[in-house]
C-alpha cells in the first residue's frame, strides 16, 4: 500500500509503484491543475511539491510529477496547486497576476508551485534565488520579463521571513492554508514501506531517466525503490575519503557542507546540471548507471579520481569510476549488484578544480561536450592532473594520455597547445543531435583552454592559445 498525503487528504493506494505521480494526481485524484507538458521533466508544467518529514518539521522541495514514480511518494506530503489555494490569492499568485506573468496560463501552476517551493525553504531568498527556482519551468508566451518582475515582487515580501519555521510564517502570512501546520503530525503516523532489497527487481532512484526512457516498462515492473532509503543518502567523510550515498540527489550534493567545503564553486557548477526540480530528484547513482557518455556527474567525479562501490548483498567491489564504463551503455556491473556509494579521496589543500559544460541552451540542457579538471601544483609544476570529458567518446572518458602528458609540466601556453594535440588523438566524437563531430572536437579544445584560462588567468590567454 502506498500511503501519502495529497494536499489535505490521506491517500492509500494499491496502484503500481511505477505509475507516474502526475497521472495519479490528474486522473485518479481528479486534480487537473497540474498540467502535462512533455512528460520528460523538461517543461515544469507538472511541478508539485514534495514534503518529507525530518524530525518534527517537513522539508519541502519542488519536483516534476511526470517523472516521479508513485512509490516515491510514500510517506510524503505531495502538494499540488489545489493544495495551496485559499479564498484569497497567495502573495505569489498575486504577484503573478499583478505583473501579467500569465498569458495562456498552461505553464502557470508550475511556476506558482516552484516559487512556493522556494518560499518554504529555510532561507530568505533573494531575486536571483527566486528566479533560479523556476529554472525548470518553460513559458512559451510571456518571454519571462513579467515573470521576473513577479519574482522581484515576491522577493520583497520575504523581508521578515522566519527562516527557522518557514511553514508557520507562510501560513501566518497567507502564502499557505493552515492545514499545513498539522502535516508533520500526520506524516509521522505513516509507517515506512517494506525495505528489503530484492535483487531480482528493477532498481529505480529519482526516476528522472527511467521514467523518460521506459515509462510503460516501469509501470509494469516490480520496483526496488532506492530514493527514500536514508542509509543510501548520506554524504560523509571517512578515512580522508568523501563518501556519497547512491541515493543522494544532485541537490543533496549542492547543499552538502562537506562537499562545498572541498569544492567551494560546486553550487555554480551544479547550476549547469539540469534544473532545480530535476536536481531534487536525480540521484548520483542514477546519473552514473544511466551510462550516458555525457552524464554530468560521471564527468565531474571521474576527474576527482572517484571510486565506485558495488554491492550484491554479500560482497562488495570497489574500483575506479573511470573503469566502470566499458563501452557505449555497457557497464562493469554484474546481475544482482547495485551501486551503494561513490567515494573520492579528499585532495590536499591547494588543489584546483574546474567544470565546463556547453549545450545549445546554457541551463536545463544536455551537454554537447562537458569536461572537468583536477590539478595539484608544486610551484610552477602540475604534479597531479586528471581530466575527464563527455560527448566525445562512447563513454564518459578519463583523458588518460592528456592527463599523463600534463602531469609534471609547467603551466605554459605551449604545454596546453601540445596537450590539445594529444587529446584530439584520444577522443572519437560522433555527429549527433548534440553537434557535429568536428564541432565537438573544436569545443573540447576550447573547453580545455577554458579550464586553464579560468584557473590561470595571468599565465594563460586565449590569444596565445589560438594564435
Amino acid at each position, binding site marked *: 500500500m502506498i500511503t501519502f498525503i495529497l494536499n489535505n487528504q490521506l491517500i492509500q493506494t494499491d496502484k503500481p509503484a511505477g505509475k507516474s505521480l502526475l497521472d495519479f494526481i490528474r486522473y485518479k485524484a481528479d486534480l487537473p*491543475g*497540474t*498540467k*502535462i*507538458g*512533455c*512528460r*520528460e521533466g*523538461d*517543461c515544469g508544467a507538472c511541478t508539485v511539491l514534495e514534503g518529507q518529514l525530518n524530525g518534527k518539521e517537513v522539508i519541502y522541495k519542488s519536483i516534476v510529477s511526470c517523472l516521479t514514480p508513485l512509490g516515491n511518494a510514500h510517506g510524503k506530503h505531495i502538494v499540488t496547486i*489545489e493544495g495551496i*489555494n485559499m479564498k484569497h*490569492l497567495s502573495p505569489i*499568485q498575486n504577484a*503573478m*497576476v499583478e505583473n*501579467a506573468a*500569465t*498569458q*495562456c*496560463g*498552461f*505553464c*502557470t501552476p508550475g511556476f*506558482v508551485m516552484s516559487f512556493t517551493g522556494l518560499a518554504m525553504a529555510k532561507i530568505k531568498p533573494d531575486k536571483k534565488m527566486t528566479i533560479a527556482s523556476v*529554472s525548470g*519551468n*518553460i*513559458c*512559451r*508566451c*510571456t*518571454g*519571462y*520579463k513579467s*515573470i521576473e518582475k513577479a519574482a522581484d515582487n515576491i522577493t520583497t515580501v520575504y523581508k521578515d521571513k522566519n527562516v527557522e519555521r518557514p511553514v508557520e510564517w507562510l501560513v501566518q502570512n497567507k502564502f499557505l492554508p493552515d492545514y499545513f501546520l498539522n502535516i508533520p503530525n500526520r506524516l509521522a503516523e505513516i509507517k515506512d514501506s517494506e525495505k528489503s532489497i530484492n535483487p531480482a527487481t528493477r532498481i529505480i532512484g529519482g526516476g528522472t531517466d527511467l521514467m*523518460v526512457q521506459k515509462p*510503460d516498462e516501469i509501470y509494469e515492473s516490480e520496483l526496488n525503490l532506492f530514493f527514500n532509503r536514508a542509509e543510501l543518502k548520506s554524504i560523509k567523510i571517512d578515512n580522508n575519503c568523501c563518501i556519497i550515498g547512491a541515493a543522494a540527489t544532485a541537490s543533496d550534493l549542492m547543499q552538502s557542507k562537506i562537499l562545498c567545503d572541498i569544492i567551494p564553486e560546486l553550487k555554480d557548477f551544479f547550476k549547469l546540471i539540469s534544473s532545480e526540480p530535476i536536481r531534487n530528484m536525480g540521484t548520483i547513482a542514477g546519473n552514473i548507471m544511466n551510462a550516458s557518455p555525457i552524464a554530468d556527474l560521471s564527468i565531474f567525479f571521474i576527474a576527482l579520481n572517484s571510486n565506485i562501490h558495488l554491492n550484491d548483498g554479500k560482497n562488495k567491489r570497489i574500483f575506479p569510476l573511470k573503469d566502470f564504463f566499458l563501452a557505449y551503455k555497457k557497464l562493469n556491473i554484474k546481475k544482482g549488484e547495485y551501486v551503494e556509494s561513490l567515494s573520492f579521496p579528499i585532495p590536499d589543500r591547494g588543489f584546483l578544480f574546474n567544470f*565546463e559544460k*556547453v549545450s*545549445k*541552451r*546554457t*541551463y*536545463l*540542457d544536455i551537454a*554537447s561536450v562537458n569536461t572537468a579538471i583536477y590539478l595539484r601544483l608544486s610551484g610552477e609544476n602540475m604534479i597531479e592532473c586528471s581530466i575527464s570529458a563527455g560527448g566525445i567518446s562512447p563513454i564518459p572518458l578519463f583523458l588518460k594520455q592528456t592527463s599523463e602528458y600534463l602531469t609534471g609540466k609547467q603551466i605554459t601556453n605551449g604545454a596546453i597547445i601540445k596537450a590539445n594535440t594529444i587529446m584530439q588523438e584520444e577522443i572519437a566524437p560522433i555527429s549527433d*543531435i548534440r553537434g557535429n563531430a*568536428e*564541432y565537438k572536437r573544436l*569545443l573540447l579544445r*576550447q*573547453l580545455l*583552454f*577554458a579550464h586553464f*584560462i579560468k584557473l590561470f588567468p595571468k599565465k594563460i*590567454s*586565449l*590569444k596565445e592559445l*589560438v594564435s
Partner: protein
Amino acid sequence: MKNIDSISHVTGKSVYLDDIPVQKGTLNGAIFASSVAHGKISHLDYSKAEKISGVERIFSYKDIPGKNQIGGIIEDETLFAENEVHYQGQPILLVIAKSEYIARKALSLIEVKFDEYEVITDPRVAQEKGQLLFPPRTFKLGNTDDAWSKCEYIFEGKVENGGQEHLYIETQGSYAYPIDNGSLRIHSSTQGATLVQKMIARILDLPMHRIEIDVARLGGAFGGKEDQATAFACMVSLAAFILQKPVKIALNRHDDMRMTGKRHPYSSDFRIGLSKDLKILAFKATMYQNGGAASDLSPAIMERTLFHSTNAYFIPNTEVTVYSCKTNLPPNTAFRGFGAPQGMFVIESAIAKAACQLNISPIIIQEKNFLKEKDEFQFGQIAENVNIGKCYEISKKTYNLDLLEKQVKEFNTKNIDFKKGVSLMPICFGISFTKTPMNQARALVHIYQDGSIGISTGAIEMGQAVNTKMVQVAASVFSINTERIKIESTNTTRVANTSPTAASSGADLNGNALRIACITLLGRLIDTAAKILNCNSSEIEIKDEHVFRNNQKTEIYWEKLIETAFLDRVCLTENGHYATPIIYFDKTKEKGHPFAYHVYGTAITSVTLDCIRGTYEVDDVKIVHDFGNSMNTIIDRGQVEGAVVQGIGWMTMEELSYDKAGKLMSNSLSTYKVPDIYSAPKNIEIIALETKGPELAILRSKAVGEPPLMYGIGAFFALQKAIKAFNPKYKIDFEAPLTPEKVLMRLYQC
C-alpha cells in the same frame, strides 16, 4: 486591465481540453503513424492489435463515411494515408481503446511494411525535380533588369532559415461525443472552430449544423493550432460518430512534435543593387519554401512572404519569387509571422552583406531606405501613416544608438575573450488576412434581465487576452463595470462561419463586430431611457452605469434601465457583423490594397559573445513600437516581450533537425530547446510610439500578436557582428539559427 483569466490561471482552475470532466465510458485514442517518409504501404495487418482486451476498434481511411480529405486551401491532404505515405508521422490508423495505455500497447502489435521511395527534404532539390505544391508566384515593382546597370554596387548571396516548432505547452487534442439528433459536440484545442467543423462535416458526410465545436481556451497555439488541430478533431469525431461513444485524444509530446508541421524553412538567393549614396535601387530574390508533404496554409504563407519581402524599405525595383516545394516532411504551417519573418530575414541579410562588403554599419543603409509616406509597396498598396522613420528617430535619440555603437567598438578593442555586437531591426507588418473574404466576424451579445452580459464572438482565447479586450470593448460602449461582462466559450452554434483567430486580427475583427452589436443595443437602451424620462433620445447618454439626461445624472441606473427595457419587450440580444472596409487584392495582377493598416517599429539588439566557448547572451532589446493607441498597455507589452523572445529563439537555439530519411531528430524537449528564463534578454525596453492610431484598428489600438516576433531577427545580426569582431577571416553567411555550434565554428573559421 489584467487578463480576465489571470486568477483562474494562477490557481490552476482554468479548464483546458484535457481538464474537461469526461463522460462515463470515454474512450481514448492513439495514432498509428508512418515510420517512413515516403513509400507505398505494401502490407498492413492490425488483426492482432484488435484482439487486445480493451481495444474497441481500429479505424483506417476505409471507415470514413465521407471524403478522406482535410486539405483546406488545396485538397491534397488525407486524414489517414491510403496507399502511400509522404512523411514520417503521417497517420495511417487510429486505435480506440478503453485507455490510452491500452491503445498504445495495441500500436506495437500492428504490422506494416513499406516499399520505400526516394525521400526529399531539401526544397531546392524538390524544385529541381518539379515537385511543387502549387505554382510559384512573383511580386514585382519597377524593373529590376533595367535597374542593375544603374547600380554602383551589386551583391549576391544565399540565405537559409530553419523551421520552428510551436511548442505550445498544451499539446494538440480533441474530445468528441454524440448528442441528440445524430449530432456531435466536439471540444477542440483549435484556433479555427469553423474550419474544424467544416472538415468534420466533410469526413462524416454530414451537414455542418450537426457538428458543434466548442473552444474554451488554448494552452498556447502561435499558429500551430490554426490548421493542424483539424486532423485530431476529425479523428475523434469519426470514432465518436461510428461508435456512438465519447472519444478523446490528447497527444503526447513526441507524437505532437513528429506529426505536426512547423514554421517553414526557406532557402533563398538574393541580389541587391545600391547607388553610390547607398539607396537600394534594385532587389531580386528567389525563395524556396519547404512546404512539406501537403499544402496546408502554405499558399497564404507564401503570399505573406511576398508582401513583406522588402520589410520597412522602399525599393523602386523589386522582383521576388517564391516556390512552394513539396518535400517529405510534415506539412509546414502557420507560425506567428506567417511567412513574413522568412521574407524579412532575406532582405536584412542582403543589407548586411552589402554593409559588410562596403565596410560600413548596416544601419547606414537601413536608415537611407526607410519607407516614406505615399511610397508604393511591390503589391500596389500606397503606404499611409508610415511610422518607421519616427520609430527610428526616437530609437536613435532615446537609446543613444550612436553612443551604443561606439561603446561596442571600444569594448571589442579592449577585450579578446568576449565580443559584443549590436544591430537594428526595423519592422513593417500588414494587418488583415491577405485573403479578403476572411476579414469578417460576428459577435452575439445577450443582456440578461439582471443587467449582466454574456458575449460570444468568433475569437479564440489562447493567451493573447483577446477575451479581455472584448470585455473592454463592451464595457466602453455601455460605460459599465467590466464585472458585469462574461465572455462565453467560442462555439459554432452561437457564432457561425468564423475566421480562425490568426493574422493578429482576432481583436480587430471580433472587437469591431462586438462594437457594432453593442452600439445597436445601446441605441435601444437610450430609446428606453428617453421613454422613461419622456424626452428626446438625443438628450440621453449612459455613463458610469447611469442614465444621464443633458449631462445630468438621473436616478436610472443600469439594472433599472435593463429591467425596464425587458418589461417593455425591448430586444436585449444583438448580433453584430463586421467586414473590414477598403481592402481588396487582385491575384491576377498581384496588386491591390490588402492591408487595413501597417504596424511599425524598431529594435536595437545587443549581445555578448563568449569567444572561448561560443556561447552568448542577449543583453538588451530596446524597442520603439507602434501600438497605435493601445487599449491595454500591460497586455500589449506582454505580447511584444513574448514575441521578441520567441523570435530570438527561432534565430538562436531553436534548431529543427531531420535526418536524411526524413525523421525528426529534435523530437522532444530534451533535443529541441526553446528559451528558458536565463536565455531571455537581460533587459527588454519598450517605448510606445505616440500616435492616435488607425480607425480600422479596434479602439485605434493596433494588432500586436505577430509583428514584434520579427524584432528577434536582430539577434542574428548582432551575433554575426560579434563573431566578425573576433574573427576577421569569418566570411559572413546567413544560416539561421545561429546556435552555439554554428557560432563556435565561425569564430574559428580560417
